[in-house]
């Protein structure tokens, strides 16, 4: 298995190749890379792949300081919550 096909985002099964291809082609920030490939949007909320998704675009960014500093948001709910826990009958 070449390192290219290594899975970076396990929840959405996004490979390293997809990430570097998208980052290279669009010269985008980490946020845009996440929006384009869904890496970091999975069930675990980015716990596994956040750092990698943030660091990959930096090498392709023209002006290092500006876009490279935008980090990914922590989207609520921080941990998956059952609707049952928020009230309503327990099925």
């Amino acid at each position, binding site marked *: 298995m070449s390192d290219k096909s290594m899975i970076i985002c*396990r*929840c959405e*099964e996004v490979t390293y190749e997809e990430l570097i*291809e998208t980052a290279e082609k669009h010269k985008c920030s980490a946020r845009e890379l996440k929006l*384009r*490939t869904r890496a970091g949007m999975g069930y*675990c909320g980015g716990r*596994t792949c956040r750092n990698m998704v943030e660091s990959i675009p930096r090498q392709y960014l023209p002006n290092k300081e500006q876009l490279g500093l935008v980090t990914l948001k922590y989207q609520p709910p921080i941990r998956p919550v*059952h609707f049952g826990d928020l009230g309503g009958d327990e*099925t």
Partner: protein
Amino acid sequence: MSQRIKYHPLLEDYKDGKNITFIFNSEEYIGIEGDTIASALLVNGIRTLRYHEETGTPHGLYCNIGQCFECRVNVNHQQGVRACITPIEDGMVIKSQDVLPTPVKDWREKHDK
């Protein structure tokens, strides 16, 4: 044949515990009290805990500290229970989560990736 590591150079020796029977995908397995679902299944040689909701590839234990949710299983009709931190109880009915019936149409080809 149980794959439980009984004698470990660092950890204290294995003390026999109360047997607990539980059901995983309608088959009965035996674990020891204090086992988590993931470790009890691992002892019984089962590593695949769920299948990816979209692609169906097998997933199992990864972080084992309750962070990555890779080991989520359906316990007594409760979705998304983390197998790595949930201790087994007698008569627990565990089912592995499977591909979702309505797959997301892969939007990647249409969108300029």
